[in-house]
């Protein structure tokens, strides 16, 4: 499993710091050009009036999915899957969502929003999110039992459908997302 491409590059710490910054630069540039770092655009999405955020996310997912699974099939990359449980993947993200609706930025877009001068993204976004993360570290020992409820590991939808060939899930899934995007466009959203 360890014969993926470019392991020599992966192991060079400072080169990786540089690459991380370059990739981040591209990420921030794209998010800002996509207008998804604006409070009004994000709230427009959450009020189901402006679908910019979903268009960006879904087209990133389709593009990324096809490339990553193709490179995985070629043995170039390995997956980085996060495991979950009902105790982690439902309550935490729901709390995140409530905060997302009030703050109007997620962690990445709050950093991008500061860059165009949104100071509520600095005080609420960066400061508030760090306080929240610190609070979580403080209560973490008391949550340990909840986190283990209904554990399902790092399984993927491919595992869930018990598909022997991953493309039997990837292709219909990508088609479904593209269909959804076409539907959004035809509805004029």
């Amino acid at each position, binding site marked *: 499993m360890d014969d993926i491409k470019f392991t020599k590059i992966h192991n060079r710490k400072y080169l990786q710091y540089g690459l991380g910054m370059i990739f981040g630069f591209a990420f921030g540039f794209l998010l800002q050009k996509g207008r998804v770092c604006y409070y009004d655009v994000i709230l427009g999405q959450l009020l189901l009036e402006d679908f910019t955020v979903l268009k960006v996310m879904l087209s990133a997912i389709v593009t990324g999915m096809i490339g990553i699974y193709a490179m995985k099939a070629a043995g170039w990359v390995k997956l980085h899957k996060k*495991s979950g449980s009902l105790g982690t993947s439902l309550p935490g993200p729901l709390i995140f969502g409530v905060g997302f609706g009030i703050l109007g930025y997620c*962690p990445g877009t709050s950093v991008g929003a500061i860059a165009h001068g949104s100071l509520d993204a600095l005080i609420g976004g960066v400061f508030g999110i760090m306080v929240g993360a610190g609070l979580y570290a403080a209560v973490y020992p008391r949550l340990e039992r909840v986190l283990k409820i209904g554990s399902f590991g790092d399984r993927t939808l491919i595992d869930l459908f018990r598909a022997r060939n991953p493309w039997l899930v990837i292709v219909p899934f990508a088609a479904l997302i593209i269909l959804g995007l076409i539907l959004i466009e035809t509805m004029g959203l």
Partner: protein
Amino acid sequence: MTAVLNILTDSAWSPYLVGVGIGILSWSTFLFSNHPLGVSTAFANSAGMIEKKLRGPRVAAKPYYRENKPAIDWEWMLVLGLFLGALASAALSETIRWEWVPSMWEASFGSNVVVRSIAAIFGGICVGFGARWGRGCTSGHGISGTLQLVLSSWLAVICFFLGGVGMAFIIYRLL
């Protein structure tokens, strides 16, 4: 040449162009850094590092920080780059404006900076707390996890939007 410059100074690109760009970017981070795009861990690391500065080394003994060592790492550099990239984009399109209260908020709740700031901090605390509890945010789960078809990420992103849509409707349609 001017065509390229016009693209760079544009204030809005097609969301599909941006999405495909982020997808290709994620190929690059997997291939050259063996790392998915993700943002919220860098916030947790920063919180840990600041807390350590303020309260001393006993902070590092907390179970959460023992399992997730706070340090400057690849993802931290990614977030630094994210800021610089967004700054470059906004500077090129000349769209940098100092603003405490977003226009949509102001239209419904007025221009009071204190009210917006308190709401934003409360929202931010929930975002940070929930991101750690759910092990990721709209980048780590919402893009990187979903594109790998990971179940925990799809559940998380559905809950992000359920919570977000619910809260947005409460704020703007009920209050």
